[in-house]
């Protein structure tokens, strides 16, 4: 034990020295965790490989390969699928069968099975990932159940007795020692590789894509993330890691028990993931280690493993939903704060994340019930500095505040050319007609407003234009091409950008990252490429420029939920502007803002309208009449008015509908 401690503390000190010295220069992205795994793993295998401790370590490492993949798929991107135990079985059983019946070496059989698993996962995934969220979870829940029924019924897989393996993972022959240690080292190398890949992906720009995907699929799609493709990639990644785990498992344990495809294995894997830290690959490794060591720790523990796991999981979740790695990360952050390095560092990646979600909350209203009054933590200066409003966008000049850079990407819409045409759009939900024969046309530049009473269909129309809702009939034509059936992410690429009625920012991330989500250039790249280079910095730089243009550069490192409503809306606007859109759809941007703030917003909108087409859904009729050059009024799904502000003010239809007698 002392040897172990000495060795590992040396390794840890070395690696932390490396880490901190390199911190001054650029740390190789995501390299550190896998180096630690490799170093520590090798040390343990070489010193203890023949002992009980070592064999438990190797077993844990087999599971950790699976859970590391689950950390990316389930923990980070919230794509809950229960397919891992089945593919673990595929890997294990496949190798055993190939080795026994086709006399293939274990290594070769392993490679074959991983490839086969990838193909099967691709096929299965393309069907299964059409579902989302709960539907995905419940559908994949069937997989272990179906697999169990099959496995226990067939003799090919050994039935209840299990399937033995004659070969070993270590390819050459030799003494038992060599085989055992060699096999263990191979497992460690594979694990380190998986951790490396996982960490690289999560800390890349696609990692940011996956994060948004996990928080809300719809927002992700509206920001250009190709949700179907990413979901499929994640599914395949999870399954391949599972198969890989199964391969090394059978290679080192020489046996496949019948319980491998059981739902209980799946549950055990999930427990390992959550205890260790659902979002971080290292956490997943820790979780696997903890559970496996527990099972062998003492007789009492292994007999009552269910009780122990139940209590452990409950306690860990209560202390920190991010599991052990969350606790460790909080501890590290606390230490850092104590030693003065205080900034929220966006570059550290997954381990630093706390439960992130969409902010739908404004400072008043539902989400704040039960809030405690805290004694400490109140800002020292009470009077007058309680709100951000004064320092935020100090005196935004009415004249053009945006130099060309922000909207440089804009096609600089032509005044007379029609940019957007909505033709005869109908939308029905059940028997209810929400949009009835709505047609309108917008040119490349200008500020236009969409008004109407609640329930008139304004948001639905915006959704139809933005692509999250398909019309029952009618067309949407953008820049000459019919985009009616195009998905939201494609419309994003075409230059349609939108904001939502409730603020949809990602809690737990900085303002900079929230804007950077819209600046990613990684949408068309495969997830695999991010093992290599990442363009996250380029995206962040572009986001920083947009923030600077809007006078918000000083907010870049602030965590999003600490901002006022006005600032949150500005961040959302910045996010919509960052990619330089040709058409900007704003859903009630002034809602919840005071008169002063509305005026500031109006000024900004007028400036924007000089370069791009802005369609505004708004209730504030004064604001609308003040800034728009044309106004559309919807009532009960019908377009009842289409004209300029002067006509708007005098129109009898409008007056009775909106203003009252």
């Amino acid at each position, binding site marked *: 034990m002392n040897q172990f401690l000495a060795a590992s503390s040396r390794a840890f000190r070395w690696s932390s020295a490396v880490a901190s010295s390199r911190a001054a220069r650029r740390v190789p992205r995501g390299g550190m965790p896998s180096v630690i795994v490799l170093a520590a793993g090798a040390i343990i295998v070489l010193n203890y490989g023949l002992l009980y401790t070592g064999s438990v370590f190797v077993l844990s490492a087999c599971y950790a390969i699976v859970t590391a993949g689950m950390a990316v798929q*389930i923990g980070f991107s*919230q794509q*809950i699928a229960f397919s891992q135990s089945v593919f673990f079985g595929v890997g294990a059983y496949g190798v055993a069968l190939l080795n026994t019946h086709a006399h293939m070496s274990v290594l070769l059989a392993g490679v074959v099975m991983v490839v086969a698993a990838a193909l099967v996962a691709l096929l299965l995934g393309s*069907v*299964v990932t*059409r*579902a*989302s*969220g*709960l*539907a995905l979870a*419940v*559908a*994949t*829940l*069937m*997989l272990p*159940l*179906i697999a169990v*029924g*099959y496995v226990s*019924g067939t003799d090919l897989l050994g039935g209840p007795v299990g399937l033995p393996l004659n070969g070993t993972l270590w390819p050459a022959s030799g003494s038992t020692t060599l085989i055992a240690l060699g096999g263990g080292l191979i497992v460690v190398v594979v694990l380190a590789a998986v951790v490396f890949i996982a960490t690289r992906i999560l800390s890349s720009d696609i990692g940011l894509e996956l994060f948004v995907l996990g928080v809300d*699929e*719809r927002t992700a*799609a509206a920001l250009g993330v*190709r*949700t*179907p*493709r990413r979901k499929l990639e994640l599914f395949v990644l999870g399954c391949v890691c599972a198969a890989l785990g199964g391969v090394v498992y059978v290679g080192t344990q020489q046996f496949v028990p019948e319980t491998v495809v059981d*739902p*209980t294995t799946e*549950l055990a894997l*999930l*427990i390992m993931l*959550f205890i260790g830290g*659902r979002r971080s690959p290292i956490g997943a490794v820790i979780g696997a280690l903890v559970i496996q060591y527990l099972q062998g720790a003492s007789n009492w523990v292994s007999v*009552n*493993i*269910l*009780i*122990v*796991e*139940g*209590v*452990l*999981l*409950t306690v860990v*979740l*209560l202390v920190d*939903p991010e599991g052990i790695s969350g606790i460790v990360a909080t501890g590290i952050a606390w230490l850092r704060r104590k030693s003065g390095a205080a900034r929220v560092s966006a570059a550290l990646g997954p381990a630093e994340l706390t*439960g992130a*979600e969409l902010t739908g909350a404004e400072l008043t*209203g*539902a989400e704040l*019930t*039960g809030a*405690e009054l805290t004694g400490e933590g109140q800002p020292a200066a009470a009077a007058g500095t309680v709100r951000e409003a004064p320092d935020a966008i100090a005196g935004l000049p009415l004249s053009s505040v945006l130099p060309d850079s922000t909207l440089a990407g804009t096609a600089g819409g032509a005044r007379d050319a029609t940019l957007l045409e909505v033709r005869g759009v109908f939308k029905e939900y059940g028997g209810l007609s929400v949009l009835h024969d709505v047609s309108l046309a917008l040119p490349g530049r200008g500020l236009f407003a969409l008004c109407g009473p609640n329930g008139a269909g304004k948001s639905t129309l915006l959704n139809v234009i933005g692509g999250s809702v398909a019309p029952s009939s009618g067309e949407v034509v953008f820049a000459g091409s019919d985009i009616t059936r195009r*998905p*939201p*992410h494609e419309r994003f690429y075409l230059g349609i950008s939108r904001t939502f009625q409730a603020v949809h920012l990602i809690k737990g991330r900085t303002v900079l990252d929230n804007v950077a989500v819209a600046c990613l250039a990684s949408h068309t790249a495969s997830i695999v490429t991010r093992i290599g280079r990442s363009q996250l910095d380029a995206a962040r730089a572009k986001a920083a420029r947009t923030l600077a243009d809007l006078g918000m550069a000083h907010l870049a490192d602030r965590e999003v939920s600490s901002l006022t409503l006005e600032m949150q809306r500005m961040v959302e606007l910045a996010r919509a502007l960052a990619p330089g859109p040709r058409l900007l759809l704003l859903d009630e941007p002034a809602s919840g803002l005071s008169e002063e703030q509305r005026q500031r917003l109006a000024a900004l909108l007028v400036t924007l309208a000089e370069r791009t087409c802005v369609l505004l859904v708004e209730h504030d009729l004064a604001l609308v009449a003040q800034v728009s050059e044309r106004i559309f009024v919807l009532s009960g799904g019908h377009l009842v008015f289409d004209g300029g502000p002067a006509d708007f003010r005098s129109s009898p239809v409008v007056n009775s509908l909106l203003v009252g007698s």
Partner: protein
Amino acid sequence: MKFGNLLIAGITTGSIYAMFAVCVSVWYRVSNILNLAVGDFAMVGALGVDNLYRVKGLPLPVAILTTLVVVAVFAYLYDQVVLRIAQDGRRPIEGIVITFFFTFALSFFIDGVAKVLFGTDVHAAPTLWGGPALTLGSLNFERSGLLVLACAVIIGGAFWLYIRFTLGGKALEASGENSVGARIVGIDTRQYRRLIFIGTAVIAAVFGIVESPITGFTYLSGATISLTGFLAAAYGGFRKPGRALVAGLFIGVLEAMLGGYVSAEYGDTVLYAILAAAILAWPRALGFESAVSG
């Protein structure tokens, strides 16, 4: 008549699934937590009564009462110790991924304790209504099955009446639909949550007691029951107990039919395959949120 008997058997098991599904669904509405431990409470009910009656020799009514009281107390404690911190603490934990796993851990814990207390063999609570099956023409009605159905109707009916016709019932509904709005009128949502959790546990235990003579339970049986309850509730989108009820019945009948007409061994496998395919084909119709697919 084979079809008729299969149908009866299907409705019997279906009503059990339905009850569990309703428990999961109602509690989710009020607390936003999925109770994956319902089946384990059922298992404890069955094995507890069996242990107290058969092994310890207590008279049957005492055994039943004691078991139910123990279950209720345990549920109360769990709510006080764990759920209170998880939900009402300074940092309320959110997200379906997390809320999924609390009762998941609870399920493990209960199974472990059951293993210690009751061993690993198959047991069952004693048959409460013994005797040969009742017949109506060529249809057979097992008495235990009838008892299950009766319980389902009584408990389900009582609950429905409570929801529809009392102010407390409406308050319960309200707290599930809008917790802020509920607080405005002085509804103590915490209390309702606690009540429902305990109620769910006790009802599950009752069903375990009534159902176990038909199938027999081990300490691991809870998991399968929880799973089916969860599944059936899923088809109602988790928030609609009415749909969960229908889904539970449907799954029960489908299972019986598949077992009877298709294959006794692989009936379940086919059932799960069908259920999976159904979710993928019509997620919206089955109450799942619409998938954003390309």
